[in-house]
């Protein structure tokens, strides 16, 4: 039977435009599916269609008011089974409803898609129930219509009007009665993210000769922001060519499937951006839109502003050296017993009578030659550690030249000679401690500062083994991190140097001393010599890899210029 009253509350509920349906549309175009199908080559063989419905002349089943119609759409499978596509909302009190709820369906050109539509009158007692929870057999059936999707889509006005039919059984016979008409309208969907949600980011590209833009950098993605302000972007003029080179700045809307939508772009050089900044004006974005076979640049209302523009000259390592900064090289050699008895050929310290250099000699020559290139006076402090000089206790920092007053030697040759004579005069001992040598180098560096020099020190430690007291080394390094000092550790022999890599902070965390102080910069570089065998160039590159950066970090944080 019919109902007496209509569902007022249900009728007041918003449909379609609510944020709930916006954010969770039950039948939204699915770009994940799109992407999948596109990737399989189903380009253009399908399209997303949105169906909307209206009906006229419905049967009136209510006594005191009119029917409260609801439409349910089904897709008819090959086997005749009906699969529900979705339900509209309930329209109150109307025999000529126009439903707001729309359904999305993928139109595939190559198959026949049969759709079945059923209209029900919803009983009052169910009026506060959510549409999808309604049990249809408890409702009043008003009629059914069947149509084929391609028929709807190919109509010139894209609307198809169907007769609503219901089966009436009366006294043994079944009659099909028409009552009312249903109009189904199809619209092709434009799959786009709604304009109220934007996750914008910028990509800056330089334009090369053949007009193709090459991305140089990109900003971070601002979440859900229509007036984004990004963090500053740092560019090197070398990266873009020159201050007048054309740059393309594109604003994209971030899409987690990777297909970011272009919102708009501007084409400006760095010089133009500087002018934009000083004039405090904005530049309108434009969007190339297809018009026929060509593209037309549609100017948008969105604007790009340059909040900050700052140019600074970044001096290079060589600028500093040319300006009077001097590099000073120091060397420390591991004389611990783990190297093996120097008289035996398998020792890392074995001096081969035929003249073939051992691992230590190779390291001194190869590394030294590179570093001494930058050291003007060629006088190097040189130490040994981990051995007992004749008549003495174990020393963790003794002068390689055997003197008790000064530690310097002349040139790489000086180091080599001091090394070979030290081998004869000390007995290898242990343990392997770097602390004293690093502390000594730090002392020299700080005294040089006190004397007003503009010197930068590089301590080369050649060692065969793993440090015995890692924490003591870390403590010394942390103290030295504030000084103009870099430490290059070259590992010789076959030991496992994993612990040493900890000291080279770019492989892990910042070094921490036992008193809670943390290294303010990374001053260590570790290179296993066996990794750089063969080829002069690779040795040089590996050893000098971090030195310029460490040097420049020191100079730049203190704002020290090349020319005083």
């Amino acid at each position: 039977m019919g109902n007496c009253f209509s569902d007022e509350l249900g009728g007041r509920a918003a449909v379609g435009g609510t944020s709930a349906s916006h954010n969770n549309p039950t039948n939204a175009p699915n770009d994940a599916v799109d992407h999948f199908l596109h990737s399989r080559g189903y380009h253009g063989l399908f399209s997303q269609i949105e169906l909307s419905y209206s009906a006229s002349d419905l049967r009136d089943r209510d006594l005191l008011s009119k029917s409260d119609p609801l439409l349910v759409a089904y897709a008819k499978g090959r086997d005749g089974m009906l699969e529900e596509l979705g339900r509209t909302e309930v329209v109150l009190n109307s025999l000529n409803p126009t439903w707001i709820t729309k359904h999305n369906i993928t139109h595939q050109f190559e198959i026949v898609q049969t759709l079945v539509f059923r209209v029900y009158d919803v009983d009052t007692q169910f009026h506060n129930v959510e549409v999808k929870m309604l049990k249809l057999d408890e409702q009043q059936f008003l009629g059914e219509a069947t149509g084929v999707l391609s028929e709807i889509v190919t109509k010139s006005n894209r609307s198809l009007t169907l007769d609503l039919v219901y089966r009436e059984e009366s006294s043994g016979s079944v009659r099909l009665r028409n009552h009312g008409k249903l109009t189904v309208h199809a619209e092709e969907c434009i799959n786009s993210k709604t304009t109220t949600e934007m996750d914008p980011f910028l990509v800056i590209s330089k334009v090369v000769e053949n007009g193709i833009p090459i991305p140089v950098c990109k900003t971070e993605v601002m979440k859900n922001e229509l007036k984004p302000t990004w963090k500053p972007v740092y560019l090197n003029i070398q990266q873009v060519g020159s201050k007048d080179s054309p740059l393309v700045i594109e604003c994209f809307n971030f899409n987690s499937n990777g297909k970011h939508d272009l919102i708009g772009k501007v084409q400006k050089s760095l010089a133009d951006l500087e002018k934009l900044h000083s004039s405090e004006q904005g530049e309108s974005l434009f969007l190339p839109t297809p018009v026929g076979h060509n593209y037309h640049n549609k100017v948008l209302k969105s604007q790009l502003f340059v909040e900050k523009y700052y140019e600074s000259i970044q001096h290079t390592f060589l600028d500093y050296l040319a300006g009077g900064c001097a590099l000073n090289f120091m060397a420390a050699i591991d004389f611990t017993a783990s190297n093996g008895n120097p008289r035996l050929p398998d020792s890392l310290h074995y001096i081969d009578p035929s003249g073939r250099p051992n691992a230590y000699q190779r390291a001194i020559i190869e590394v030294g030659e590179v570093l001494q290139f930058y050291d003007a006076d060629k006088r190097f402090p040189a130490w040994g550690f981990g051995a007992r000089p004749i008549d003495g206790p174990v020393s963790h920092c003794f002068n390689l030249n055997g003197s008790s007053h000064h530690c310097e030697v002349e040139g790489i040759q000086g180091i080599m000679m001091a090394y070979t004579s030290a081998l004869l005069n000390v007995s290898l001992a242990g343990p392997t401690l770097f602390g004293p040598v690093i502390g000594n180098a730090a002392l020299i560096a700080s005294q040089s500062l006190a004397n007003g020099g503009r010197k930068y020190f590089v301590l080369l430690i050649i060692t065969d083994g793993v440090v015995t007291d890692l924490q003591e080394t870390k403590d010394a390094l942390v103290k030295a991190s504030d000084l103009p000092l870099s430490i290059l550790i070259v590992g010789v022999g076959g030991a496992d140097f994993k612990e040493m890599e900890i000291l080279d902070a770019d492989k892990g965390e910042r070094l921490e001393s036992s008193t809670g102080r943390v290294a303010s910069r990374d001053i260590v570089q570790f290179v296993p010599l066996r990794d750089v065998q063969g080829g002069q160039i690779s040795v040089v590159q590996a050893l000098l890899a971090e030195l310029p950066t460490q040097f420049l970090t020191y100079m730049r944080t203190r704002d020290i210029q090349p020319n005083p």
Partner: protein
Amino acid sequence: MTSISTYTLEIAVISGENLLENRKPVKKNAFVVIRTDSHSFFSTKMDTDGGSYPTWNEKLVVDLPMHAQFISLEVQCKTAAGNKTVGAARIPVSDFIGGYVPQSYLHFLSYRLRDSNGERNGIINISVRAKLPDYASCSSTGMGLPVAEKYFGGVVTGVPVWCTNPAQASGINDDG
């Protein structure tokens, strides 16, 4: 020498790293409080959007009593329930005063922060430059500091100095 009461320190509070509050990264409103003795403290502005990697880049000029052995830094966070201490560090004065470097050397220092339970909680980066009152810095090499008792309050690593100038070694090796 007659008693001089304070140094002037230029402390630039630069940034913090990896600050957690209740095991979650700090969202915003972190600031730093510097205490030079039990009465005086100085505080930076809040970083409103840096989250757990705040940057302050704020220079504070503080007076440090000469007898002080530590200054303390606290990173605090302004929450709805008031100011909460995220982490603290104690900085020995010997880290930036004394030693061989010239007095006005700009020290870049970083310290491990520990929370109220003593757990590690991030790092703080600062720079410090000490300024002595004029007449005290007239000693030649910049190392002539009035060495008060217990000047170097912390432990010093004794380095056997074999080859460098022994002359300036006074006052460096500490008790014990």
